[in-house]
């Protein structure tokens, strides 16, 4: 690779080479219907699920098979064009937006390649929808554990890119704890296998490095996931509280017992009211300051014992009522309010900003009180619906983007909230990813040397930085970023 291509900003050369000729060459691979090149056709792909960023790709291509993906990536490599991999576009960080570069849509690759129920694993293409995978293996009494709220639409490939979480990750772990192996096409067009399934994986944890790389390291062609047994029993409780503090104390009390709930979610009053006035009404008490949605699962023996312990703790910490779902219908209804909460916010205002900070669990009461103060000072309405069990907050503000004054206040409030979460010992994103949305906050938590180390890792996978350019790590903060590979000291290899 020539040093000059590294030194130049990717998009400069890119724009010029994304032309009709490239569109034609890509159409020869995937078919003309699967290449979008007219600006009007590309409108759908200018945003993800976060309605605050709009970036227009120069071209979008939708390969339908593994071989087509390989051919597309190699064509883009041959002409040095940057690209952005995209799954279902349900991301909440602007990570799958392509600004004047090529968007590679992977949602047509929906094949479950193989299922090994005995060893509890499955290999899938990247476009398989999260919930479709669980459905495909349901007959074996298995499921895929990470369950982002967008699971009905989001893809496993996108989950791998973002290291997606979900309510049940409190007990079962996030995406990276469930990926065994990956077949990846690097931006250079080279195909590599990371990890493996037949025996222990040794050497560098390349699966760990790839998961959560937000599309900056290449495209996963095949993903082998670990499956989990469906629990023998599930019990879902809804406890409501007259103060946020009491709800937060309950969270700590439950966790301290050693019981790991399958999920432990908090929903504040503003969110409860938004949900209850929407089609997703779940029967949450609208006068409560906060509600906890608690799920316990596992072997039936001992489960009731844990339910009793949790119920007692809720009441001891001030729960007004504790409702235990009697059947699957009631359980689904209780969950619907939580999973569709962001959808329900759509009723409140046209625009929404969502944050994803994580704070140490013991700091929850203090941080929630500070967020309340920030919302009052800036006259914005913050709703909180989040994974309380692991301290992963989702403060979100619904607003009208056509109101410049309100928009400005929202942005000030968001920055203040992020800063106070970081000051409490937290991090800027727990499961949504950095993407574009949080890139400005990276320097709040990482030193230039730490960011440079991340750039170093990225360059191992993508030396030309053509895959999802401009995301995750702020370019200017990396000292080595501008240094061409030729200028670096060479390795005396071990």
């Amino acid at each position, binding site marked *: 690779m020539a040093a000059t291509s590294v030194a130049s900003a990717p998009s400069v050369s890119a724009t010029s080479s994304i032309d009709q000729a490239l569109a034609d060459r890509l159409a020869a691979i995937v078919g003309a219907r699967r290449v979008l090149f007219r600006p009007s056709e590309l409108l759908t792909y200018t945003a993800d699920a976060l309605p605050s960023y709009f970036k227009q790709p120069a071209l979008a291509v939708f390969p339908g098979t593994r071989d087509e993906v390989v051919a597309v990536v190699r064509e883009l490599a041959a002409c040095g064009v940057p690209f952005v991999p995209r799954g279902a576009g349900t991301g909440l960080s602007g990570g799958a937006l392509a600004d004047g570069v090529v968007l590679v849509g992977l949602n047509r690759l929906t094949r479950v390649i193989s299922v090994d129920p005995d060893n509890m694993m499955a290999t899938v293409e990247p476009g398989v929808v999260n919930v479709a995978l669980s459905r495909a293996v349901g007959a074996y009494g298995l499921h895929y554990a990470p369950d982002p709220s967008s699971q009905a639409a989001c893809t496993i490939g996108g989950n791998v890119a973002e290291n997606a979480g979900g309510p049940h990750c409190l007990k079962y772990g996030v995406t990276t704890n469930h990926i065994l192996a990956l077949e990846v096409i690097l931006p250079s067009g080279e195909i590599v296998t990371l990890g493996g399934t037949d025996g222990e994986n040794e050497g*560098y944890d390349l699966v760990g490095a790839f998961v959560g790389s937000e599309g900056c390291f290449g495209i996963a062609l095949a993903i082998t996931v670990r499956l989990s047994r469906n629990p023998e029993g599930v019990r879902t409780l809804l406890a409501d509280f007259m103060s946020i503090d009491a709800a937060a104390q309950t969270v700590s009390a439950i966790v301290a017992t050693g019981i790991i709930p399958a999920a432990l979610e908090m929903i504040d009053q503003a969110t409860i009211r938004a949900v209850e006035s929407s089609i997703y009404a779940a029967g949450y008490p609208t006068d409560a300051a906060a509600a906890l949605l608690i799920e316990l699962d596992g072997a039936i023996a001992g489960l009731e014992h844990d339910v009793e312990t949790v119920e007692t703790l809720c009441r001891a910490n001030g729960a007004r009522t504790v409702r235990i779902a009697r059947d699957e219908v009631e359980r689904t209804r209780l969950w619907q309010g939580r999973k569709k909460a962001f959808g329900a916010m759509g009723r409140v205002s046209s625009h929404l900003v969502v944050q994803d900070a994580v704070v140490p669990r013991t700091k929850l009461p203090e941080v929630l009180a500070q967020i309340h103060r920030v919302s009052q000072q800036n006259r914005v309405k913050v709703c909180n619906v989040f994974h309380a069990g692991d301290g992963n907050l989702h403060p979100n503000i619904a607003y009208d983007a056509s109101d410049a004054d309100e928009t400005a206040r929202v942005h000030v409030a968001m920055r203040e909230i992020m800063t106070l979460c970081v000051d409490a010992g937290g991090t800027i994103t727990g499961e949504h990813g950095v993407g574009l949305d949080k890139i400005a906050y990276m320097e709040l938590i990482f030193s230039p040397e730490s960011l440079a180390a991340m750039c170093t890792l990225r360059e191992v996978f993508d030396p030309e930085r053509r895959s999802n350019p401009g995301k995750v790590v702020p370019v200017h903060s990396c000292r080595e970023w501008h240094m061409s590979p030729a200028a670096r000291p060479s390795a005396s290899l071990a």
Partner: protein
Amino acid sequence: MTTSSISSAAHLRDCIRDASVRGTPLRITGAGTWLDAGRPVRSVESLSIQGLSGIVDYVPGDLTLTARAGTTLGEIRHETGKHNQWLALDPHGSDKGTLGATIATASAGPLASAFGTPRDLVLGLEFVTGTGSIARAGGRVVKNVAGFDLTRLMTGAWGTLAVLSEATVRLHACPQVDETIAVAIAGDSESLDRTRQLLRRLAFTPYACEVLSGPLAMSVLGRDEPVALFRLAGNIESVTAQRASLLELGQPVDVSSEAWTSLRAAEPTDAIVFRLSRHPSEIGTTWDEAVRLVDGAPGALLHATPARGIVRCILPSSEPTMARIGSALAAPPQSKRVGERMPERLWSAFPNRANSEIGGRLKQAFDPRGLLNPGILGNTV
């Protein structure tokens, strides 16, 4: 060999920079309890992180703990135990080992069946790269996707890309009941398969399940018959049911939880230790292969982790054993082989651990002068 003892991350950085100027490769060590683990390192100087010790931050309510890399597992066990919590890592060896070495080598023991390996418990790291940069990755919270995952990259990299100076780990609250139970089994491949099938079918995951060969059961439990050793935990009702579900395998007998400590420390000094693995469903076949490999080696000890498809082989070292195992290992492997400790000449039977194009590029990027633990993972190109 000269040894420098490190007192801070900045000191570590200075030592690495100094070694870089002098072009002197370094052997990175922790407590030095396992210096013969991994391939031989080509270095003349040693850098010990043992002095870089102590718990930096521990808020029990957060179930996370931050400690310097040289902190021993014993100290962490002691401190967390005061709050009825624990770090669910039980690497082979003892609690004298350091947190840094455990993470750097991704060492895991029987608990990995339920809690995963270090990659599943490490939340954040501070490290110094081969280029002398102090960097942090991850954080002190239990969920974090900010930036590329250098935490997992460094976990299990055997100190070849960077030297760990500090780590934050996830803790667990101690269960109400925690019992150790032995069930005598035949110890043949069929009994291994049955144990694995039972584990696959159960509605719960035992904290641990290891199958011990007769000689190993003798050394750990004082009974000369193969056993399946279970660690069952949870509330009383749950553990009672768990125990009952083991009956189809044989009669459960209570044994002391000390069995786990003895199992971790079962290998004699200078033993040859390696592991075989493939799919868990093939554990019987893997066990048979291990039995054949160690056949005729006096004092050979075997144990299997059925849920993970791994068989660990421990052979007291002697010249005849070395010759015998050397020729046995020369046969093409049917299972994946992972070496732990052995004399240099046996290593050729174990594939290079970081031998991939990307592995080589990583080494070049993070340790371009090849200063850190050169050779411990085999060649990296």
